[in-house]
């Protein structure tokens, strides 16, 4: 993420969380936190405990976040926020927690008197390959909970639709044939299948490097009857360095009622 993207993100984040902007430029922001947001990100539980037990007037903090120092002409004191900075990671975490599960309905025109909406389960996956290197892939999948149809690029499809958290009036929601949890299992299966089909020469190469380095290590301690602790240590280090692992994470997902 570049500074302008970070700035854009921060604006949206605080706006959506009903925090007021005191300064709002293209390279820094000063924002008045709400009580809720202060509790979430300012990391001062004792203060809040104190205010709440004494019944004092809560005074949530103001936060100045600078996204592009190079453009800063004003004499402003604040936190520098960039991709990789702890503050931004914290906000990413918060965002993640606030947008993990969703239920949305496609909005249909009033003219149709009894629109029928089909339930879908949509899930966004992140698959990470780890050895001494990393590679990550995202999959956005959706499964039709009526007939089990599965489509890829689900999130992109959604962004082209007019969807909202409120059910359109008069809409008829088809009850699902496939339970969402079963739907999730099917999607998991698809992701695992993708992984199986994928090219895993990276893991083979890592294994080869691991074996090579093991040979080198063995050579160093060759002939020693009792191997010192450092030998076991190096062995563990090599395992952690090269062992191929795959991690499947779910970024977010939810139920979607679509036409």
């Amino acid at each position, binding site marked *: 993420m570049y500074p302008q993207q970070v700035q854009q993100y921060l604006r949206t984040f605080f706006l959506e969380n009903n925090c007021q902007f005191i300064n709002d430029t293209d390279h820094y922001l000063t924002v008045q936190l709400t009580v809720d947001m202060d509790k979430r990100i300012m990391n001062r539980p004792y203060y809040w405990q104190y205010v709440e037990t004494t019944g004092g007037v809560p005074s949530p903090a103001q936060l100045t976040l600078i996204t592009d120092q190079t453009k800063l002409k004003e004499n402003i004191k604040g936190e520098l926020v960039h991709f*990789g900075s702890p503050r931004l990671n914290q906000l990413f975490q918060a965002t993640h927690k606030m*947008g993990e599960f969703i239920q949305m309905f496609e909005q249909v025109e009033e003219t149709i008197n009894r629109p029928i909406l089909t339930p879908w389960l949509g899930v966004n996956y992140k698959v990470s*390959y780890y050895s001494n*290197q990393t590679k990550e892939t995202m999959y956005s999948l959706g499964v039709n909970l009526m007939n089990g149809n599965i489509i890829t690029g689900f*999130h992109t499809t959604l962004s082209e639709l007019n969807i909202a958290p409120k059910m359109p009036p008069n809409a008829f929601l088809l009850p699902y044939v496939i339970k969402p949890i079963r739907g999730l299992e099917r999607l998991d299966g698809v992701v695992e299948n993708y992984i199986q089909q994928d090219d895993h020469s990276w893991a083979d190469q890592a294994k080869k490097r691991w074996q090579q380095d093991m040979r080198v290590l063995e050579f*160093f301690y060759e002939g020693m009857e009792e191997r010192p602790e450092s030998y076991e*240590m190096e062995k563990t280090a090599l395992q952690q360095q090269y062992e191929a692992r*795959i991690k499947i994470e779910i970024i977010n*997902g*939810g139920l979607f009622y679509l036409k």
Partner: protein
Amino acid sequence: MIIEKSSEWAEGLTKRLENMESWDNWTFYNMSYIIAQNNLITEFTGLQSPKYLTNLKPLEHQLKVAETVIERMNGKAILADEVGLGKTIEAGLILKEYLVRGLVKKALILAPASLINQWVEELHYKFYIPAVAYKKNTPLEHCEVVVLSMDTAKKSPHRELIFAQDYDMIIIDEAHKLKNHKTKIYEFVQSLKKKFCLLLTATPVQNDVFELFNLISLLKPGHLGNYEAFQSAFSASKHDLEHDDYLKELVNQVMVRNRRQDTGIEWTNRQVNIIPIQFTDEEKEVYEMILDLKNISPVFSGAFSMITLQKEMCSSKEATFLTLNKMRQNCTNLEENNYVENVMQKLMALEINSKAEKAYEIVSQAKDKVIIFTEYKASQAYLQWYLHTKGITSVLFNGKFNKNKRDYMKHLFKEHAQVLIATESGGEGINLQFCHHVINYDLPWNPMKLEQRIGRVHRLGQEHDVHIYNLAIDNTIEIDILQLLYKKIDVFEKVVGDLDDILSAFKQTI
């Protein structure tokens, strides 16, 4: 292959379906997706981190080092660029890349005490890595990246506290301090788990090739074979290397080294001058008398103390006097005692210090800032006094100064004084690009120390040609030192590669 998967999300979904918890907000849902997409590491290779480092413009060679270390050396390497090419930046790039890729969660950095704050600052400012300088009660379990000195790390209770952590990456600055495998610090580093490990040193070989063997055996035990195999293959005598090319090849698999001319940056030149100096007759007489001491008393029969005295005599009578006086107290015999006292009288009667005069001559001709390096504190003080009598202002510098004092001295030198007089230990960790004259008043035994000294001024940011003056007194031990320096440089070049001029073309003449 191991596949990790969590059932947490499925549980969260069930709770929503059963109306036990509320659904989330679409904006955050969408943002979360975009963030994940933006942060995705789509390729095994290539550096992800530099584009996010807005406070840093890495140089071409630094990026290349980071890539090579990660992709070809699998994150275990000796970073051996010449002084002043930015090894810290390279290490920072590598660390950052591994942090971004999630391969490193915790890192330990060992640096000389005087450089700890510099590390912490650079990591914060240039890499946005929240590094912490270790203090007595620093909770290591909560620190992602911690910087501390080798001296602290190897001692209890810090040692045990460090072992209790699980570090994915170890970075060691000034790693040539690990050249001796019999030291406590070597043993300490050996018993650390090294999943990813960087050893930073401009001088991986200082005296002999075993130092390199020790370093590489820390990083990748067995890469150069075990000790016996290495010894029989590579050392008939320590200075004579067979199988040079083979060794060089092995070394290059774990070491990256850039030289100034490889960087594609236009560097100013180094003009190295050897300045021969003649003792006055009186000085020569005292020097000869000191040489004779070993025939007079067993107190002076040790080779080491004789060498020290000779070196000191080439530096200043003040330095010589201190040692001589100390040794005289060990003389039991009156006759011996009288002889030594006679030498001391002659010594203190000397009115001229030929070397100091030459140094003054250079300083006054330079009409510019000059750094003088000496090996002795007594000479340092003497030089300051001597230059003062000639109307030349100077400040003193040594490695024991804390960060504030260093910065202050640097400031004084930059703004107010013409000369900075530093002792050896002041060589590391101070950057003086605004100066371009260096006088090596005394020569160290170790060519890498010379390189470290010159590196203080001949580094990125230097705009002028750098003038180096190596002072050596004819017909004294200093000529031997010069020859030995060349021999050592030869070893270095055979296994590591060329060294920049540090001694000048004198080489051809010996």
